[in-house]
């Protein structure tokens, strides 16, 4: 299996209440950890973006990616365009392509904007048209209900849903997978016994993305869970990395 991790972060401020063995302040430190655990690449953002600001955060990430491994893609943080801080929707695709960004994200709480589709409609329309994955992470200032409302407004959006709950969330997640055909589920917090097998029987393996939420969580746990699941080898390969690569490829980023 070749692992691509859809949920990676680096930066100075991780969860301060968790005694991480060592924070990965700089991107090369994260890359060392990817080497240690056998992860080829993935999607990453700098956590400082959510307290230092989106302009500097996106810029630092873009700069760091210049010297990073080929298979590591950035995640560009959005705020509503009405304040004119970021590139406008028409220009953003080119900016993302030039800076090796593979997906978009938001943190409405951290950046004090409405967690509604209407607040980001120009960017979301562009993402829909260009098939750029938009990450909806309930750990990032948007509730599952708000994610659902946003998806109802853009039901064919290429989205990556991450639900920040260790306890099984199938009753919450499965309606998303059933109703939104281009939504993918990041399994970083999905650690239920036989949970992968059950989800694949529900929606197939093409909708699930290997993810760890490293450095807050162990990469090796997710690797062992996937490798020794009762899925076929082709299903495991899809989840381990092929699905994420397909998403990035479809966006031609």
């Amino acid at each position, binding site marked *: 299996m070749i692992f691509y991790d859809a949920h990676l972060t680096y930066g100075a401020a991780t969860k301060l209440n968790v*005694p991480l063995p060592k924070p990965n302040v700089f991107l090369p430190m994260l890359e060392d950890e990817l080497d240690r655990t056998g992860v080829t690449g993935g999607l990453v953002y700098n956590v400082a973006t959510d307290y230092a600001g989106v302009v500097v955060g996106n810029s630092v990430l873009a700069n760091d990616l210049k010297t990073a491994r080929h298979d590591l893609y950035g995640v560009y943080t959005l705020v509503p365009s009405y304040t004119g801080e970021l590139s406008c929707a028409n220009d953003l695709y080119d900016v993302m392509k030039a800076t090796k960004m593979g997906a978009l994200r938001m943190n409405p709480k951290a950046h004090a904007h409405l967690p509604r589709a209407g607040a980001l409609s120009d960017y979301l329309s562009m993402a829909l048209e260009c098939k750029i994955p938009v990450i909806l992470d309930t750990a990032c200032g948007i509730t599952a209900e708000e994610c659902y409302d946003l998806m109802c407004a853009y039901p064919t959006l290429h989205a990556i849903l991450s639900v920040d709950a260790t306890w099984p969330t*199938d009753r919450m997640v499965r309606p998303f997978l059933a109703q939104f055909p281009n939504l993918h589920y990041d399994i970083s917090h999905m650690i239920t016994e036989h949970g992968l097998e059950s989800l694949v029987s529900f929606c197939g393996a093409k909708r699930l993305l290997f993810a760890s939420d490293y450095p807050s969580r162990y990469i090796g746990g997710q690797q062992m869970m996937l490798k020794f699941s009762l899925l076929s080898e082709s299903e495991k390969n899809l989840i381990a990395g092929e699905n994420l690569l397909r998403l990035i490829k479809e966006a031609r980023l």
Partner: protein
Amino acid sequence: MKYVNRDSKLAQRFYEAGCLEDCPLYDFHGHLHEVGGNYLPAGNIEPMLDTLHRIGAKSFAFSSHFSLTGVITGDMDTLSTCKQYGAPLRGYFVVMPFLANPPVDCKTILDNPDVYLGCKFLGDYHGTPLEAPVYAPYWEFLNEHKLAALCHTWGDSPFDGSENVRHIAEQYHDVQILVGHCVHGRWDDAVALAKDFPNVWLDLTAVLDDRGALEKFVREVGSERLLFGTDMPWFSTYQGVGCVLDAEISDEDKHNILHKNGERLLKIINR
């Protein structure tokens, strides 16, 4: 490419084989069947046994959700499942405060030494502090017979927080007290309990999803009183093992956590 943990030979071997004779698994915290609130695809015993056999589990000690919720009175679900399937299944007798019948319950435990390691206390869920009078006969019994007690514990709980555990540990020195979830989030309190009381064990169930707590425990307490647990069918056994293998601790520590400590604990309680 090496996966899980390039620096651990044990991790490399486990990732290749999925099961190692020299590293069997002792899981001290499991459950059985469905429970309100969540969908558990492996809630029944067959898929759980499949995983336990595949990963080479020597012992899996559980308490049925049916017993914990009282939907089926008594502890028959845990007992009958253990009797029917045998090893590696072991059980905890669930102490239900509102159904407590110490003479009968303690006799059931004594009559089934092949099943019961001791009792399970779920103070938070039952709204009863560990030191409540209703539990006292059970603590006396466990202390007298030198058995184990698995206590659900959680951060700021007034029922099974660190002060409740401390109260019990100060009083009962011959019970092996398994601090389930390590007083979740209050990692310093868990460290202090393990340092202060030689009969306290830290059960890593639902701790391994926060990277770093395990390394802290090994650094500050040592690995000799850490026990592996999964909460299965809640959490994946392979995922839990993978977290231990990934952790930045020595392979000797990993062996302690995955099986050696469990082997030692079972000898202490003569089970």
